[in-house]
């Protein structure tokens, strides 16, 4: 496209010279205009009114099929060759072109609309010393504009000044790079001094020299010269279009790049066009058809040469040759004539019809109420309308975890305090009661600080706490003290916790509701309200969490002066450090933990220890030394921590539920039954991922083994993968079998294929990010693939977005299978783009994933409907369509081929030219569309009941090269019948009044009527789902055929256009003859009955799964809705680790004063927007962009105001 545009621009002479350097002066429009920089209007539309026709036509003729038909039309204009009138090609071509043009035009109108909408947004611009509202598109380079909080950045700006101290601004860049954390930009001090003084800004006349427009988001180089001083500019001083201003009251900026020059626009427009495998197959087939056409035409040409020599030369008396044309030239011309006659093997309407069918099926997805999420008012959306049938062929699903499988909501569900279980309900007989939405919840209204959203069902726990049970109180005290949560209390009593992991938030909230309200903290103290009483604890130390320790502790001094160490962490770790006196409690608690783990809950063990003052002083001293030591600091600290965290006293355990989205386990079970493999790729921690794996039934206790690959060296990873594979499949060859073949257009594409290997039993594989990095290496990737594909379930944790895409690509490359990636966050974008089909979960973490996805909906569970119903139907319909379409066109064309042997290979057509013109466009268009828009083998409920119905799609069973060849054979048979039966019946026959009926025109009419009837009956055989529309289309088209025929063969048409309608009277004189109808009946019987026989025998001998299900549908009425099994209770030996989406390093920050202040004021959204993005996790938002030398003197009130 770009080349076309530039071509036309060159034509119009408007192409600009390449910009070397951008030079602009603030507040000087005339000066800046002299450079002809683009203003801030954007144009994503391709055409305008004048360029639409030429550009669009040019675009369309770049498609092979259209160009081919144009070429045909040119051929038809050569009289020596023209075996068909020009209109036979022109009419369909024009129709096809105009349908596409209308679609393109409507797309472009939409783009125009959205462009207009963006261009007409208003922003305050400083013009002539005054701030004026101006449309975005009128903003010029060099203008100074004012942005306010939560506004979109209008253009690429040089930040001049801001409301915030130190001229900082905060921007969200999600639309630009997908990162949801806030970024900080800082203006030059010299410009920042202007603040919002309009007169100063209006007088500002700095000159900027900078790089020309480019698409590098992270780089900017330039200088600002102001009053003779040069200031260097970098990326930190530039606000890019596409960002949103956050937490900043206002800022001023100087427009550097506008509209198309902005980095956002420079980055856009690189969307990859995804094409389905059916598309690829279709292209290959069309090429094959071209080859086949050439063969047929050559055969005809040879036949013509022979005929011309043997017969034609003696017939020249009656039909003299045209001057200069001898037998060999005539045969050459015949070749081209037959290219025209037989052109219908390359179906002109194929592509258009395919587009229409896909569009229709996309609409069904949009319209589906069962994929509409009521809570968020989000319908499903097919954002790409060209991939539908691929949905019916998915073999691998790559799913994100957080926000996709889970809701990213943690709830405090159960706990075990001092050996007693809370959170479960029992009836009077001691039977456990299922907790449903209707179950009575505990009323926390007595506690004014309670979180109203917190739900708990077990009243006994609250009673226990209220009764003053010391263990229960300590339990919640621990939860209220031992964490890194930040409180925010804008209004008295309205507490808001900013937890950096939702688990912690859930625990602290639980404590809050049970009467231990964490209220505020300073670096040295923590204030909580214990049962309505304010208690301030002195915070002596935070022994922070890290991956090795898997625990965190705080040491606090109560107002009474008691020193206590509170510790929470992974049970295995805690249990090692318990005081022997807890052994009995440990046993009981272990039992509880196993139960929790079996339910897929995340567990933590809680313990405490009283410390004595002297020891603490000593320890603190040593701690101070260690933490200031220059070398070996980490080790020394670890030792100290180890030393103090021992002989703990067990309090109990918590169980937090990482809430799955509704219906996730069922969906996964269904998809597994449909033989779809699901891989979870998450940025989350191994334990968390494993937990979810169990919770949603991907990992099961019954699995023979679950391998964990977590080595840190390539050798180690290889070893572990090999071991896993050997265990699963001991006798597999060491070297993977790679089948290399070629595919695609001209067989240019090399493909490699790794076969699936059979494995007994079910296995699971968990691999972490480190190991994955090694495993994705060239040498190891096949090993990884083999091992992973042997497993039922694969979970990759701690993976980066890039690795997600790499995994998808690996499977795509070596499995030649159709992949689907589903995710909700910006970190899933890469895999969504990499997979054949990307699905975005809408309405949660922002729109990034949705925007780059092909389909989107609100809940993971809709995936089964998308695949098992819509995908399956789309695939079925598309394949039926293609099979039928090729059949009808080949049959149509082959009849010409047989006729050639009777007409001296003279390229005489069998049918009337008008019939040739209208066959694909009118007579057969609607019935086949009706079939391919409405057909369903069984309805959606049965599709769910038998997910196995999905497998034929994965195996390409409905349409492939083989089936195409079979179609051709079938066509060949049909065409033989369709030609030779009428031939034999008519050749020596006359009408009942002795007049002609064996003439060409009557024969043409007979042949075309036979063809049409046979083709309709074939369609009826293929249609499984007869709606009123189908009936209407079929009967209507048949009626239309006769109506059109009688009209075109009528006196009037002939008298007006005598040369175009020479078939006058044929219909009347021929269709009133009984032998004509008897011939039609005979051809229909002979064409159709063998097909029926074949199909019937197939159903009897090898019924497919479809046949079986359809048989069941006939036997029964409707499938009984599957009984909703209550989730099984399992006692698991597996226990979760410290299953927190927790990052190391927060303890220090909590205790650092600087952090507290800043955190409070600025970076909350960035810090606590929980994503499972490894980026966000592995580099905890370290306030890295905030300069260290922050002045503390600013009055808090002023800053408070700037927080939203």
């Amino acid at each position: 496209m770009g080349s076309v545009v530039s071509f036309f621009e060159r034509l119009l002479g408007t192409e600009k010279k390449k910009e070397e350097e951008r030079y602009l002066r603030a507040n000087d429009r005339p000066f800046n205009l002299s450079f002809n920089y683009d203003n801030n209007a954007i144009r994503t539309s391709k055409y305008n009114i004048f360029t639409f026709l030429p550009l669009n036509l040019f675009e369309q003729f770049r498609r092979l099929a259209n160009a081919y038909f144009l070429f045909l039309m040119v051929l038809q204009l050569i009289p020596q060759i023209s075996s068909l009138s020009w209109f036979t090609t022109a009419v369909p071509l024009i129709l096809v072109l105009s349908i596409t043009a209308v679609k393109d035009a409507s797309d472009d109108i939409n783009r125009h609309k959205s462009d207009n909408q963006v261009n007409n947004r208003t922003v305050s611009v400083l013009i002539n010393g005054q701030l004026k509202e101006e449309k975005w598109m009128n903003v010029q380079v060099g203008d100074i504009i004012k942005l306010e909080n939560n506004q979109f950045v209008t253009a690429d700006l040089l930040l001049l000044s801001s409301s915030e101290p130190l001229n900082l601004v905060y921007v969200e860049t999600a639309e630009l790079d997908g990162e949801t954390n806030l970024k900080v930009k800082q203006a030059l001090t010299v410009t920042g001094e202007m603040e919002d003084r309009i007169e100063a800004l209006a007088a500002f006349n700095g000159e900027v020299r900078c790089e020309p427009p480019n698409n590098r988001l992270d780089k900017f180089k330039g200088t600002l010269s102001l009053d003779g001083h040069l200031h260097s500019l970098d990326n930190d001083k530039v606000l890019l279009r596409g960002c949103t201003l956050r937490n900043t009251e206002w800022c001023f900026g100087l427009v550097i790049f506008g509209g198309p020059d902005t980095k956002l626009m420079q980055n856009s427009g690189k969307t990859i066009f995804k094409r389905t495998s059916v598309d690829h197959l279709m292209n290959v087939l069309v090429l094959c058809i071209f080859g086949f056409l050439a063969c047929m035409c050559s055969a005809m040409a040879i036949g013509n040469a022979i005929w011309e020599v043997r017969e034609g030369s003696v017939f020249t008396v009656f039909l003299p040759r045209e001057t200069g044309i001898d037998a060999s030239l005539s045969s050459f011309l015949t070749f081209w004539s037959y290219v025209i006659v037989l052109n219908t093997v390359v179906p002109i309407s194929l592509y258009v019809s395919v587009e229409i069918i896909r569009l229709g099926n996309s609409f069904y997805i949009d319209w589906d109420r069962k994929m509409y999420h009521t809570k968020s008012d989000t319908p499903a959306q097919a954002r790409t309308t060209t991939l539908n049938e691929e949905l019916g062929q998915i073999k691998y699903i790559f799913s994100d975890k957080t926000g996709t499988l889970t809701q990213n909501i943690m709830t405090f569900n159960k706990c075990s305090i001092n050996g007693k279980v809370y959170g479960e309900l029992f009836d009077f007989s001691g039977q456990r009661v299922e907790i449903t939405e209707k179950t009575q919840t505990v009323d926390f209204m007595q506690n004014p600080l309670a979180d109203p959203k917190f739900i708990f069902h077990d009243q006994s726990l609250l009673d226990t706490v209220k009764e003053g049970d010391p263990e229960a109180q300590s339990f919640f005290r621990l939860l209220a003290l031992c964490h890194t949560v930040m409180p925010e209390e804008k209004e008295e009593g309205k507490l808001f916790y900013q937890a950096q992991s939702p688990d912690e938030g859930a625990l602290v909230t639980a404590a809050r509701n049970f009467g231990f309200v964490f209220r505020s903290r300073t670096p040295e103290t923590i204030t909580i309200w214990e049962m309505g009483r304010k208690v301030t604890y002195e915070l002596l130390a935070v022994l922070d969490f890290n991956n090795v320790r898997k625990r965190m502790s705080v040491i606090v001094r109560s107002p009474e002066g008691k020193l206590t160490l509170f510790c929470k962490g992974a049970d295995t770790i805690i249990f090692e450090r318990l005081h022997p006196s807890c052994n009995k409690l440990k046993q009981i608690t272990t039992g509880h933990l196993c139960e929790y783990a079996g339910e897929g809950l995340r567990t933590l063990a809680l313990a405490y220890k009283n410390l004595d003052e002297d020891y603490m002083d000593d320890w603190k001293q040593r701690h101070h030394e260690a933490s200031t030591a220059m070398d070996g600091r980490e080790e020394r600290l670890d030792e100290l921590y180890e030393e103090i965290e021992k002989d703990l006293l067990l309090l109990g355990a918590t169980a937090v539920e990482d809430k799955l989205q509704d219906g996730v386990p069922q969906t996964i079970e269904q998809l597994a039954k449909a033989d779809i493999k699901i891989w979870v790729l998450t940025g989350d921690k191994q334990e968390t991922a494993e937990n979810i794996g169990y919770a949603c039934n991907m990992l099961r206790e019954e699995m023979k083994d679950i391998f964990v690959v977590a080595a840190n060296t390539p050798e180690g990873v290889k070893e572990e993968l090999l071991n896993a594979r050997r265990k699963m499949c001991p006798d597999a060859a060491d070297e993977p079998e790679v089948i290399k073949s070629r595919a695609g257009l001209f067989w240019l594409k090399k493909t490699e294929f790794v076969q699936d290997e059979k494995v007994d039993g079910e296995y699971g594989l968990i691999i972490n990010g480190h190991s994955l990095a090694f495993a994705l290496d060239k040498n190891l990737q096949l090993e990884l693939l083999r091992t992973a594909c042997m497993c039922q379930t694969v979970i990759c944790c701690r993976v980066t977005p890039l690795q997600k895409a790499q995994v998808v690509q690996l499977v795509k490359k070596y499995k030649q299978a159709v992949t689907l990636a589903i995710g909700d966050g910006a970190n899933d974008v890469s895999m969504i783009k990499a997979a054949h089909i990307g699905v975005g979960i809408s309405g949660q973490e922002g729109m990034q994933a949705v925007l780059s996805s092909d389909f989107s909906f609100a809940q993971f569970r809709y995936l089964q409907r998308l695949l098992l119903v819509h995908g399956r139907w789309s695939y079925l319909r598309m394949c039926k369509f293609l099979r039928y379409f090729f059949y009808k066109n080949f049959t149509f064309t082959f009849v010409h081929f047989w006729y050639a042997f009777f007409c001296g290979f003279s390229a005489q057509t069998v049918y009337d030219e008008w019939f040739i013109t209208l066959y694909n466009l009118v007579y057969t268009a609607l019935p086949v569309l009706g079939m391919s828009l409405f057909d369903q083998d069984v309805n959606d409920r049965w599709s769910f009941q038998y997910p196995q119905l999905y497998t034929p799609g994965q195996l390409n069973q409905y349409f492939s090269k083989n089936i195409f060849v079979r179609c051709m054979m079938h066509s060949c048979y049909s065409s033989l019948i369709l030609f030779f039966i009428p031939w034999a019946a008519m050749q020596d026959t006359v009408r009942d009044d002795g007049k002609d009926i064996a003439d060409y025109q009557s024969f043409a009419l007979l042949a075309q009527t036979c063809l049409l009837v046979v083709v309709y009956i074939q369609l009826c055989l293929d249609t499984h789902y007869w709606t009123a529309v189908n009936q209407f289309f079929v009967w209507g088209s048949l009626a239309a055929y006769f109506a059109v025929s009688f009209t075109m063969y009528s006196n009037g048409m002939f008298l007006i256009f005598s040369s175009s309608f020479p078939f006058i009277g044929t219909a009347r004189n021929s269709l009133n003859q009984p032998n004509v109808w008897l011939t039609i009946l005979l051809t229909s019987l002979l064409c159709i009955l063998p097909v029926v026989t074949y199909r019937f025998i197939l159903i009897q001998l090898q019924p497919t799964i479809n046949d079986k299900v359809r048989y069941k549908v006939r036997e029964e009425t409707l499938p009984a809705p599957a009984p909703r099994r209550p989730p099984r209770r399992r006692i698991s030996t597996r226990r979760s680790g410290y299953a927190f989406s927790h990052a190391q390093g927060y303890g220090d920050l909590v205790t650092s004063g600087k952090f507290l202040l800043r955190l409070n004021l600025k970076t909350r959204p960035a810090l606590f927007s929980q994503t499972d993005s490894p980026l966000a996790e592995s580099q905890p938002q370290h306030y890295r962009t905030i300069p260290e030398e922050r002045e503390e003197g600013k009055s808090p009130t002023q800053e408070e105001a700037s927080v939203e």
Partner: protein
Amino acid sequence: MGKVKEKPGPLARRPDNSAFKQQRLPAWSPMLTANTVLPFFYLMALICLLLGVWLLLTVQSTHEIKKDYTDLGTCQLCHEMRKDVSNANKPCSCRVDIPVEKALKGDVFIYYGLRNFHQNLRRYMDSRDDGQMLGRQNKLKDPSTYCMPFRKDKDGRPIAPCGAVANSMFNDTFILKYHGRSGPEVVPLLRTGITWYTDKNVKYRNPKTQENFTLAQEFNGTAKPPFWGKPVYELDEHNPINNGFINEALIVWMREAAFPNFKKLYGVLHRAQKPFINGLPVGNYSVEISYNFPVQYFRGRKEVVLTTLTWFGGQNHFLPIAYLVTSSLIFLMAVGLTVVWWKYGKGGKNMKA
């Protein structure tokens, strides 16, 4: 994609609950089951059998006599003579004897048949001007270029009717004689009423400029096709209104045959007088042929056909036999299907999964 309806409320974007949009349109889902397929096959076999028998009886009731006269008897001489182009205009006639052993009852139709004459060549078929034969003045004087090279004669006069089709018109004439007890007697033939009504009345018309012009005057300034002996307005010497473009023999010829072997209607027995009121009685007949049409160039054959007709048309055994064969095929298929179904599919045993 997907228009969002602008309606307020929490469910603003909920899709409509229509059967069409939810793909729940009521529908009929037929399936190939033994209950439908097997009876259908047997029924079809029966129907085809009945049709076949009926058609066979019908066709058997017609009577057809074919005589290839290309080089038969005295026509041998003419055949030899026509091999030489220089003799093209020399008349030659010959006689072929046709014994009728069984009376041809009812209407009797006389056809001329040609073998290996390709009226269906594309260039041949195109070489005509329907506009001219519709009597359009402009086309009469300036025929379509499709008629090349029979568009204008050497003197530049337009040829009427132009084109290869008209030029190659079959121009043998037959006189059928009945050799009865009272000596040879010419069998009266109708040379009109042998064309499609639409052809005679719509598709072909003579040019008409002035009320009082004779046909010859209308064709003034045009030339006859080079192979013709007579101009178009003198084609039928006996019946002046059967001349010009609406000459029925011409119209019959102009309706091009679909295949290289064809027969065209020459005339119909005029059953006005004895002994032909009931058709052709048994006896000896002969055809006097003025042998003009050369077939030796293209290795063709000529024949004359006398036949009676039924509602089913002429004597074509193909359809009856085809129906009988099809009937037996269907029956065989039906039996085969029944066996297969009995063995594998009865009671849905193949569907147990």
